[in-house]
């Protein structure tokens, strides 16, 4: 009997060593942690419950039958993050380069099925050379099974991908379909085809880092939502994100004790809007001063900076924030910012996270680049996302809300629940100068008359009161009391239920 117990311990010992000490040292040498070390950092201490430690592959081609490492290159199971359940898989680069075999994929599928059944998020740690080529189509079938589950789990439980090594070829499409992708600077990359293939096909010479490193994906492609300095920081920040997210689409976003007065007055917000309407200001100051404890988890900070997306808490409860950023391109909407914000809005709506929208938008960016690349349909994504979102929606207009962009930014007309405006707001079709030049085209040659018309237009429309007279603005509020008013607005919406007409699914302009 004792021998059998010893045998189990020995087998566990071997499995835990993965690809062996030498490969573990090599992994550390690259500045990377092992699959199990990463799980240690991701989950609460001693909370990990492992499955399928002894699974091995079934391939007998190319001598594969001679090496059958226990676990087959991926560690799977569940554990807790601050006491809340999550499922996790962590690919082990020390075992056959973390390559994906049929059994490796089945291990991932098993925990994904459990996560869906039990209503808990899935966190995937990716560090894999790609498909196990020796297995051929079996490996591809494995990927396909994972993809299908990513799709089915989408909108049911949050899915987070952490790229901590290579992730190339078809393998990229599993993270691509999850809700968030995080990368580690200098030690992770993602691409569909690698630098060698790129060179063969297009003659472009490019490094792996340039082609698919963290900087590329956070700044240029927007594939990744954030990048961190190293494995330790990345996993700490994933824990921090999970603290903001509900476990599944049936549960409310989490609430935690807070030490910040919801009625806190911020007198300095009264001077946030500069006197000169063309002078920018930093919208992040408003976000930080609204949020509990100035805690803001920004998503896609480095991409399309003319719009800000991320999570804050109000009265301890998660709120998603979308805000125009006047510091960048005057906060204009364009293809990138509309896509970025639309995806964020849809994530929040999937998981019942209330939405706060802060508006200072001069309109859509004009130009051939925008039109040729389809700003019509991309802009429509954000419009669509706001219109279909049934979560509590609170909007604060701080300054400009012009034209179509005004309607898009969670306006009353898109079923915004509570729409506030600061006294500095200008809710209008366009700025006074542009409007005057159209309405009074006949006077264009007379600068004095035009100036008088512009002043007249400004006096009539460059304020929130025309919109407030019509009820499009529920209330004009003092900037200093924004936190209090917004917190109370969300409190009043806690019981919101908004059924939508039955449909199989909508047809958002993708």
């Amino acid at each position, binding site marked *: 009997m004792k021998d059998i117990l010893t045998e189990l311990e020995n087998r566990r010992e071997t499995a835990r060593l993965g690809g062996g000490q030498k490969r573990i040292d090599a992994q550390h040498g690259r500045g990377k942690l092992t699959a199990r070390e990463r799980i*240690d950092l991701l989950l609460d201490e001693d909370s990990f419950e492992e499955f399928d430690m002894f699974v091995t592959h079934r391939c007998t081609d190319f001598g594969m039958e001679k090496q059958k490492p226990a676990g087959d290159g991926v560690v799977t199971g569940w554990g807790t993050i601050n006491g809340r359940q999550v499922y996790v898989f962590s690919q082990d680069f020390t075992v056959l380069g973390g390559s994906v075999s049929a059994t490796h994929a089945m291990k991932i599928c098993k925990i994904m099925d459990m996560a869906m059944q039990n209503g808990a998020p899935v966190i995937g740690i990716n560090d894999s050379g790609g498909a196990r080529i020796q297995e051929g189509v079996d490996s591809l079938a494995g990927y396909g099974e994972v993809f299908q589950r990513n799709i089915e789990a989408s909108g049911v439980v949050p899915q987070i991908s952490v790229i901590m090594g290579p992730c190339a070829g078809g393998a990229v499409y599993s993270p691509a379909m999850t809700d968030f992708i995080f990368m580690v600077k200098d030690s992770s990359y993602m691409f569909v085809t690698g630098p060698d293939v790129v060179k063969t096909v297009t003659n472009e010479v490019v490094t792996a880092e340039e082609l698919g490193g963290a900087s590329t994906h956070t700044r240029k492609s927007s594939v990744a939502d954030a990048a961190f300095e190293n494995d330790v920081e990345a996993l700490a920040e994933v824990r921090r994100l999970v603290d903001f997210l509900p476990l599944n689409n049936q549960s409310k976003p989490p609430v935690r004790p807070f*030490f910040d007065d919801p009625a806190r007055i911020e007198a300095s917000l009264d*001077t946030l809007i500069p*006197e000169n309407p063309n002078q920018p200001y930093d919208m992040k100051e408003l976000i930080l001063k609204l949020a509990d404890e100035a805690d803001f988890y920004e998503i896609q900070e480095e991409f399309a900076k003319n719009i800000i997306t991320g999570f804050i808490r109000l009265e301890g409860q998660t709120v998603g924030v979308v805000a125009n950023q006047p510091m960048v391109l005057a906060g204009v909407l364009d293809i990138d910012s509309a896509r970025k914000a639309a995806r964020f809005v849809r994530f929040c709506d999937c998981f019942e996270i209330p939405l706060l929208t802060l508006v200072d938008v001069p309109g859509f960016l004009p130009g051939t680049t925008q039109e040729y690349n389809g700003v019509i349909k991309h802009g429509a994504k954000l419009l669509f996302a706001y219109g279909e979102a049934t979560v509590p929606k609170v909007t604060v207009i701080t300054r400009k809300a012009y034209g179509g962009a005004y309607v898009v930014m969670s306006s009353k007309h898109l079923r915004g629940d509570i729409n506030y405006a600061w006294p500095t707001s200008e809710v209008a079709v366009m700025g006074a100068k542009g409007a005057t030049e159209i309405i009074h085209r006949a006077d264009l040659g007379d600068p004095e008359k035009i100036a008088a018309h512009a002043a007249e237009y400004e006096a009539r429309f460059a304020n929130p009161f025309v919109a407030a007279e019509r009820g499009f603005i529920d209330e004009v509020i003092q900037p200093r009391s924004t936190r209090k008013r917004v917190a109370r607005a969300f409190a009043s919406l806690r019981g919101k239920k908004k059924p939508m007409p039955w449909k199989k699914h909508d047809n958002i302009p993708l």
Partner: protein
Amino acid sequence: MFKKILIANRGEIACRVIKTARKMGIQTVAIYSDADKQALHVQMADEAIHIGPPPANQSYIVIDKVMDAIKQSGAEAVHPGYGFLSENAKFAEALDAAGVAFIGPPKGAIESMGDKITSKKIAQQAGVSTVPGYMGLIEDADEAVKISHEIGYPVMIKASAGGGGKGMRIAWNDEEAREGFQSSKNEAANSFGDDRIFIEKFVTQPRHIEIQVLCDKHGNGVYLHERECSIQRRNQKVVEEAPSPFLDEATRKAMGEQSLALAHAVGYASAGTVEFIVDGDKNFYFLEMNTRLQVEHPVTELITGVDLVEQMIRVAAGEKLSIQQSDLKINGWAIENRLYAEDPYRNFLPSIGRLTRYRPPMEVASGPMLEAGTWHGDAPTGETGVRNDTGVYEGGEISMYYDPMIAKLCTWGPDRGTAIEAMRVALDSFEVEGIGHNLPFVAAVMDHPKFVSGDMTTAFIAEEYPDGFEGVSLSDDDLRRVAASCAAMHRVAEIRRTRVSGRMDNHERKVGSDWVVTAQGQRFDVTIAADHDGSTVTFADGTKVRVDSTWVPGQTLAHINADGTNLVLKVGKISGGFRIRTRGADLKVHVRTPRQAELAEKMPEKLPPDTSKMLLCPMPGLIVKVDVEVGDEVQEGQALCTVEAMKMENILRAERKGIVSKINAGAGDSLAVDDVIMEFE
């Protein structure tokens, strides 16, 4: 007494004057430029009059505009503050002509003290000690030696036309005087084409000590003792104190009496300051007289209890001084730190913009001003005092047009050590965000052994920080206290995280008691035992630090008592720990479980990119033009590009010879601080 006065100034000094006027029941009128529409002095005054565009030479110092404002408001008197029109005789004359009282000295006194040579002559005649020297023409080396001998060594041999150290020699004996005279003469002839030479006493270990005087229009005058202002950066005072740690009673009396003699000699009537340079042997020499209220006047008020602004107003209204010299005791010690919007880590480059956070420490009334009833405001009282003279507020703007001073923070204590300690705590409690500022620098000075011992000269900053300020490290004791505090704070924050909703019942996370703190390159393994009042933190060597604190997550200031030492930490968040600012130090403190620490040690250290071969944008701004192309060879000092920031064009030049390898920005690009503009091979 006047019913209404106008303050021809802005910023903290305008606010300061308004406070006293209000206490005296006098109505106040502020003036403001376009840049100051929302300034604090405008909000505080009973009325405010707009006087023009932002630049001071189109608003605050245009005499006609100020006179118009006076007429419009019906003010009976004008307080000029300091700077601007405060020492402008024409302004005093215009006021005279308009029958408006000037809250300052008579025009004649301003004029005679405004000129360096005249003022020195008058001072000599009044029996004030001046730097001994020979102003006439010196024939030859023999005469130079004779004169030097008479003055007494060391002497400074200077070219009359000199400047920038050229043609200047210091001689400690006859031989050096002979050589120095000859070489100065040659150098002066070559450099300036003018070989006239003069010789004066070279003051060694110079300290800047000044005497505050106060005179009425009836021939009465008192001196309110001294202020020491030796801590200066490029002739700009940074730290001031009263009294001076250097003077003895006899020297103080001599300086005070000579200052009064000078004041009387010019018919002075108001508050004024006589500045002296004092050498290591307590010989003092007249420098100049400032015929206005000094920036650093609060330290004098704090040790004497006299409200100088009130006295100035009373004198201007013709009242007789009610204070006798014998009333003026030195009571305790006061320190002033000037907080400037200057970034100490960037060679004190002015930093302007929005004050996103501005929370000065709470003012505490204490000492002579409290006793004399001259403290204005409703501050609580205490053993040590805190006074903050400011002209800004949170959400306000530090403008490019004026002096970048944010505030004058003063503390009072019964003795110097107490005043310094109160200042340390007050500086640590002072929150300023949104702009760069010199808080870390002055905090470092407050801990500098030379300052603490009082052993300083005007060369203090140049000698102690020759390469600028690069921050300070905490002492081992302070670091241990900070490490213990952070461990305790981190534990509190982690426990809160476990209280989130949606937990698995009975499988909650238990927050452990063993932690590893890393800070300033050191590692501390600690165990925390928490109780109702705080935590006892035990280090690996068995020593303990008791941390009492009511800090909760989100608070930006942590008031901590660590083993009886009061610490105030500015707390910021970083991944896995805190950014802590205290005592002039700015450090990242990580707090990890032993397992996290073990794994964190495997992480590669990422060195910051080598910026020596890059041109970084020194300020947020817009690229106006780029003067070079990739492949160009540039010489040291060559213009590389122009950045416009706040309407000012700044030309960035090559620091050394090199070849441009990459250009990352072009005209029209808007850049943030430290963005890489171009790279060199």
